[in-house]
């Protein structure tokens, strides 16, 4: 323990830091060591978490901004409020929500009660009731599904054992930022052999807390267990601050099965920088089903580290980039054990000057014999103003790997549109149908109600109704 550390602890006592909590509503703008200590103190966290946060903070300062993607230098870290007490987040009124967002809710057919919640202005709505009954059912079979802050307090052993083991703070600049200031997110624990009968939907759970800007999700699935986790929703999420930096860690222990579905639709001023990674142990199967339609810029490559023999990975990544947007998304499969398999499918649509980038990594480490892997990236560009990039990194260090990779970029074929129009569709309808078909590999993996909403969303995007 360093002397600085002791000093911090001392001063905390001296100023009766904990008693001040009642008066703390939010941290000052900007990020300093004090901010990190304040957040941890406010949450009454164990000492190890404070130390972990400070370690992350130090790394955040040290780590240069990534240069392989552009535009991140526009983020002003000093303008961000890194922590708000949940009750303080709900002071905005419905009148503050931009008309455009309200109109979108209307078109998507979002129920009145949910709209306020989605816009970040509603404190409660009926799903709270649903959540409670779901929670009761889950606890009967030993499944834990709660806020990450609560998980840290109530399940300290499991939490500490796995926290930061999948995405270390030092992984990248933004995992360090999240490690320093995280708040909210989900903590899920599924005991050995338990199959969770219904998808766990963060959509309902986070109702009480609002969506976290720096959320941290930890999912631990014991041997032979099975779970499907769904986050996000089709409606645009209106955020007060324009930075969303999340970390998601999934631990899939031997023989387990985990599916993680995301539909991201942040409003178009948000920088969405997310590190999502899973460890798949022997015989485990992990699936990321990931769609990004919102945000100004998304940087996100759901990853699976295949650490145990026979593990498998399946990643479907979808991106729609419209005016002013850059979706820098993709996937990574890192084969570290023999006889592991992976499949990556990426689909992107860019239009109205939007830019869709696929960036992916496929790695077969020495010792990972008998790997079978495939990567497929397809991109549709709807006009000449848009841009599409593909940057796959493939690194094979074994002699019996079977790897295939294919990528195509193009526009909607005039023949297809002509054919559909000859069957009585308008040009716009025809185009929609082609795009929906193009993205079907994704939508068919969604629960039905999500699939319907997602298709509506894509249709809206294509009409240019969303900014």
């Amino acid at each position, binding site marked *: 323990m360093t002397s600085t550390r002791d000093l911090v602890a001392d001063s905390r006592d001296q100023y009766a830091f904990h008693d001040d909590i009642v008066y703390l509503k939010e941290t000052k703008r900007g990020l300093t060591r004090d901010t990190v200590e304040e957040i941890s103190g406010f949450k009454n966290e164990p000492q190890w978490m404070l130390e972990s946060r400070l370690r992350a903070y130090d790394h955040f300062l040290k780590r240069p901004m990534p240069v392989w993607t552009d535009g991140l230098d526009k983020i002003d870290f000093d303008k961000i409020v890194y922590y708000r007490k949940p009750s303080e987040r709900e002071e905005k009124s419905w009148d503050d929500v931009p008309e455009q967002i309200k109109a979108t809710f209307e078109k998507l057919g979002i129920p009145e009660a949910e709209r306020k919640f989605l816009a970040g202005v509603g404190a409660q709505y009926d799903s709270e009731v649903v959540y409670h009954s779901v929670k009761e059912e889950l606890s009967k079979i030993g499944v834990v599904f709660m806020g990450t802050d609560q998980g840290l307090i109530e399940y300290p052993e499991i939490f500490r054992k796995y926290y930061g083991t999948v995405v270390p703070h030092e992984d990248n600049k933004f995992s360090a930022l999240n490690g320093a200031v995280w708040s909210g997110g989900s903590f899920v624990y599924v005991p050995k052999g338990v199959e969770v009968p219904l998808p766990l939907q963060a959509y309902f759970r986070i109702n009480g807390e609002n969506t976290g800007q720096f959320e941290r999700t930890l999912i631990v699935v014991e041997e032979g267990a099975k779970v499907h986790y769904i986050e996000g929703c089709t409606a645009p999420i209106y955020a007060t601050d324009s930075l969303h930096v999340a970390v998601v860690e999934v631990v899939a222990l031997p023989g387990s099965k985990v599916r993680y579905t995301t539909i991201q639709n942040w409003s178009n001023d948000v920088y969405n920088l997310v590190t999502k990674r899973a460890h798949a142990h022997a015989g485990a199967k992990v699936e990321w089903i990931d769609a990004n339609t919102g945000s100004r810029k998304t940087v996100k490559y759901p990853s699976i580290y295949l650490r145990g023999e026979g593990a498998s990975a399946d990643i479907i990544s979808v991106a729609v980039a419209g005016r002013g947007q850059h979706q820098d998304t993709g996937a990574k499969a890192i084969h570290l054990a023999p006889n592991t398999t992976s499949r990556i499918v990426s689909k992107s649509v860019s239009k109205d000057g939007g830019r869709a980038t696929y960036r992916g990594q496929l790695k077969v480490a020495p010792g990972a014999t008998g790997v079978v892997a495939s990567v497929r990236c397809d991109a549709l560009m709807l006009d000449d103003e848009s841009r599409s990039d593909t940057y796959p990194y*493939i690194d094979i260090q074994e002699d*019996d790997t*079977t790897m295939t990779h294919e990528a195509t970029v193009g526009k909607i074929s005039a023949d297809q549109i002509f054919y559909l129009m000859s069957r009585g569709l308008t040009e716009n309808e025809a185009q929609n149908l082609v795009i929906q078909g193009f993205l079907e590999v994704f939508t068919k993996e969604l629960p039905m109600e999500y699939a319907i909403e997602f298709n509506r969303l894509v249709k809206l995007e294509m009409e240019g109704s969303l900014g």
Partner: protein
Amino acid sequence: MTSTSAPSGEAVPASKSDTAGTNRPRRRAPADIPFRFADRALAEALATERAEPAWLRADRLAAAEAFEVLPTEANQLYTPYIDLRAATLEAVRPWVQTASVPEAGSVTLLPDGVDGIIDLREDRVVGLGLSDDATAAGVTLETFGAALVRDPDGLRRDIEGGVTLPVDDKLAQLVRGFWSQGVRLVVPDGVRLAHPILVRWQSGNPDRAMLTRTLVRIGARAHAVLVEEQVPSGPDLECAAGERVPQGFFHGTTEVVLGADAQLAIAAIQDLGPRQVAFQHRFARIGEGASLHWALAQLGSRLVRSRIDNRLEGDRSSVEQAEIVFGTDEQLFDLTSYTRHIGRDTTGNLLSKGALLDRARSYMKGLITIEKSAIGTDSFLGEFGMNLSKATRAVAIPSLEIDQPDCRRAMHSSSVGPIDANQLFYLESRGIPPDEARKFIVLGFLEPVVARVPLEATQDRLRELLEEKWAAGIAAGSVGSTDAAA
């Protein structure tokens, strides 16, 4: 989030076998260039020693300055893959004075089926000849030194400002600033050469650096074939165990300008010695309706860093590029190819294939860029690898950057796999012994480039070289592990 560095804190065995067994030095930082000679004083010395005109001196100095400030890797996408550890060039000294013409009294005989030859060994010109037909048609084949005397204005137009080299590339600026030998081939408008021109570079003197440029200008509607050989200048030095192994350094360019409707086929074989470090820059500006074919074979050297730039500037221009790598021992091939579609209805067809044995490594990095102006592009990039031993490593980064969706085709494809068990079974069922069958499959995999070599003698030599390398691999027991896969 970065797709590059292994995360710390991960208990993964990823790099274990990288360091076990071999004693590689620490990975060089991108700024650590493994040689010391490149400074302003050398650029000055080269210009003074060769009594170069002011414009050429200024060109060298501009390049030397650019070399100082540019990063080693021009492309941020690729930075983490720089690996110059194998290069120990701290002691190399470049040739400062080089011959412009063959020694007086020497006679160059044109080999059969060749319209011209220039043969350069270290600092000397050991052969230079042009057929009567080619001479009559106005073709010129000469060193930069000779061109400076005969046609200084023409040379100035061709090379001033470094317009046939990438401006953002440190290593391209290195050769622009510090070249000591240059070859210029000019084929005038409308001239169609019946036979190939052969350019041979012989390099390999330990602790010597050979920095060279080759400028190829093919006029409108002209047709030409160029065969380029990079071969050892002498036998390998024997070194006692533990002794410092001196390396040689070869850095050569091929700078191509194709006029309207010109056609050029280039076949290049790099078979330098095992103690050689080779850097190559190939840069082509392809005019309206012109077409360029590359057939490139990389076999030799300890470390190869190659960059190819194809600029499809004219409407309906096209490029076809086939490259093979056959790596053994600890060879490392770092190969980058940039193809930029600029004109309308341009075509790019790029194919790279690598077969690796022992601990050989290959990095195949390709980027296709389709600019907004490039309506009707047809572009394909394929990178295929065959890892034949356990300790090999094949990295492929086939990238696309597309600003114009109105294209006929924009795709890339890549695969890595062992020898196909079905093919092996088929051949064995026809009575071919397993080792022989594997050889057929691997050499067949590389055949697309061999078949494209236009000069029969060179083609035969390439086949021999491939067979020799294969046989050496078999003798060393490097290929055994494919049995498991089969």
